[in-house]
């Protein structure tokens, strides 16, 4: 919820990662890390699902690799959080020649173009969707971790059929939406 609320804040209150830094973060997280994380599921999803059904302990190295997601959760949260500003044309006010404007003008003009940008690109909608996906992924990941560690009973019932494969599908959809975000500052 914290993430969703963030988009409702005034533009002047949001974080200030510039476009280049945000793209760098996105490359590292999405391209470098997440896509390679997916090879775990390409290779092991069936094996992990079988392990859950047959109540067999999963191999430690596979579990460790699966766990790596948790360390990345805050980074993904930041990536989504920062996107609103990183893609906002308000950033252009810090660049030549607009940077030469008086600060007072920059303040009101910045708020205006940021509001216009949000209105026209519907960026908030996309980011709210992403934030929702991220929350769901975090919950599912925690559930799967318990199952992979051998917990069953009610939890297992809740997981349904082929939970790891479904989780992978969910993550790939998350990846697709991240990938669809623009790279450049959005000029409105």
């Amino acid at each position, binding site marked *: 919820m914290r993430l969703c609320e963030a988009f409702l804040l005034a533009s002047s209150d949001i974080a200030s990662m510039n476009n280049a830094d945000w793209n*760098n973060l996105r*490359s590292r997280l999405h*391209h*470098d890390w997440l*896509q390679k994380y997916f*090879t775990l599921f390409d*290779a*092991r999803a069936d094996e992990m699902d079988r392990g859950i059904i047959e109540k067999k302990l999963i191999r430690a190295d596979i579990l460790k*690799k699966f766990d790596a997601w948790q360390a990345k959760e805050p980074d993904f949260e930041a990536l989504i959080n920062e996107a609103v500003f990183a893609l906002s044309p308000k950033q252009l006010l810090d660049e030549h020649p607009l940077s030469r404007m008086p600060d007072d003008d920059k303040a009101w003009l910045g708020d205006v173009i940021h509001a216009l940008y949000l209105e026209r690109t519907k960026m908030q909608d996309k980011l709210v969707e992403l934030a929702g996906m991220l929350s769901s992924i975090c919950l599912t990941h925690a559930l799967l971790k318990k199952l992979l560690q051998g917990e069953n009973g009610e939890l297992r019932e809740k997981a349904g059929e082929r939970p790891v494969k479904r989780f992978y599908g969910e993550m790939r*959809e998350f990846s697709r939406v991240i990938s669809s975000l623009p790279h450049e500052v959005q000029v409105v």
Partner: protein
Amino acid sequence: MSLPRILVIDDQFGSSIEDRRNLCLSFGLRDITGDDTTPENIEAPLAEARFTSAQKQVNGVITNDVQIALSAVGDGWPHKDGWRWSMVLLDIRFVSGRVDERGEIEGGAGDDDFGMRILEEIHKRYPDIPIVMLSSRERKKVLEECLRKGAKDFIQRTAYSPDTTPPKTVLGQKLFEHALLPDIREPSDGLKIVGNSLSILNILRSARTMATGRSNILLLGETGTGKELLARYIHDMSSNLAGPYVVFDASHTAETLHEDALFGHVKGAFTDAKDDKPGLFEMADGGTLFMDEIGDISYNLQAKLRRPLEERVVTRQGGKKGIRINTQVVLATNRDLYEDAQAGRFRSDLLNRINVSPITLPPLNERRDDIPLIAVALLEILCRKHSARWPRTITPDAMERLVNHDWSGSNVRGLRKVLEQAVLNSRDVELIVPSHIRFDHPIEPVKVQAAGVAGAAPPRPEGDIYISPAASKALTEKLFEQGKLSDYYLEMVNYVLWALEKSKDERDNEPIYPKAWFHLTGETVTGSTKWQREIGKIIFRVSNEDIIPLMKKSGIFTEAVVICGSKVDSAIERLKELASLMKESDAFKNAVQKGIAKSKEGSKSKKNLSDILRSWEDANKA
């Protein structure tokens, strides 16, 4: 090597063994990099893969390095052990820079398209190596640039839909389409295309690509280059073909029977048509019809081939109903069909229909690197066929003789014959040594025999070197008509000279050769002025380029000169021409001198040859 080998150039998989194991598992790769002490056990792997990151790390800083990638490619192109990379899989983004305390790499300028730089460099230095990009970038966004820079294709490592084709299947498709793969089938007869030369691997790739379609495939190449084996390979590679593989050989089927063989007939179509009979086009329905020696089909029948080849419809002789067929047609010839079409011997419209993208098999002389592989494979087949000792080894010096021999005109079939002779002459030895290798079969008389005219040949003597004069004469006339004599001349010359040489050296020792000598000189040549003329024409109409090396074998040439010198005016004229071409050639002088010595006193031959020698000496003095 039973599995193809590929090189994977990727920053992450080149360095992280754990990630690599997952990639190998999902793509069906057996890791042969050598740095993983407990690699995954891959069931039914598609390929062996070596990984490199194309990076180096110094003092905690990772740097991208094109040279590392190029060096890895060069290690297997070709490798000293005889294999070469079947394909390179190449990532696009390579992350470089300082590694922080969490193990994260900070990233650097140029990381995003470093793979493109590697692509350009590999393509520049090794243009024949198939490169397929393997990246998580969206295919449609980068494919065009990758293709422009020399990649064959692009595999998106992670697709966005969970129901997309599994990575192993995708890689299998790309290997089939683009990789340089040897023929790894295990046919029941043991016959397959052996070789790892670039030319043969490219041909196999073209054949696989064409096998997936339904268009006609034309195979070109000299005798013995493996056209029939390639046709069989195409059939086996057509995964959508469940039907049979059927062969039609125009040169082994009497011309009058060609139409019936191909199209069949309905009952009552002609006197002997007592039942309906399907032709080979129909019999190959759902499979492949291999039409060998397509150039030997009559001009009239060529016109009838257009419909089955273009519309896939055949009508039996005497029938009215067209029958639809689903037959892949592979055609082959060793002739120049363009030349035949220009000369009016082959229909241009048919040629246009079958010649869409022909595959030309290289002569063995152009893929000498493959000779050791082929020789060993043939040796095993021949040893088993003749119940001779196996395994056995060809010594390096014997192999060198095979590799360096001129296989023009005989190709793999010639190599097989030499090895078969070696096996038959030494059934129980462990080693094939140089003395077992005898190159005394410059052509295959079987071909001449087979192409002869039915009913013309007298009883065949022992051995396989017999050629009946009548059959040869008829064949000569037939080949004259078809304009095929340029090749035939050379074969005949080789054949006659070979027989002459054998008779000269071994007529008293070998049981076979005296018979050959008898038929060529006793019965045929000296007994028939007409036949002498034929040989004279043949020998002396061979091009300068071909005859001069033959003349240098003075013993052989002398025989030919003595036989022809007195009878064939054109031969005398040709000798005079050669005298001017071969000024200061001791070979020429020796041959003619020996010819004079061998000719009977007072014969026309002796006089002709003496005149020629005198002119040659005068010209040299001048």
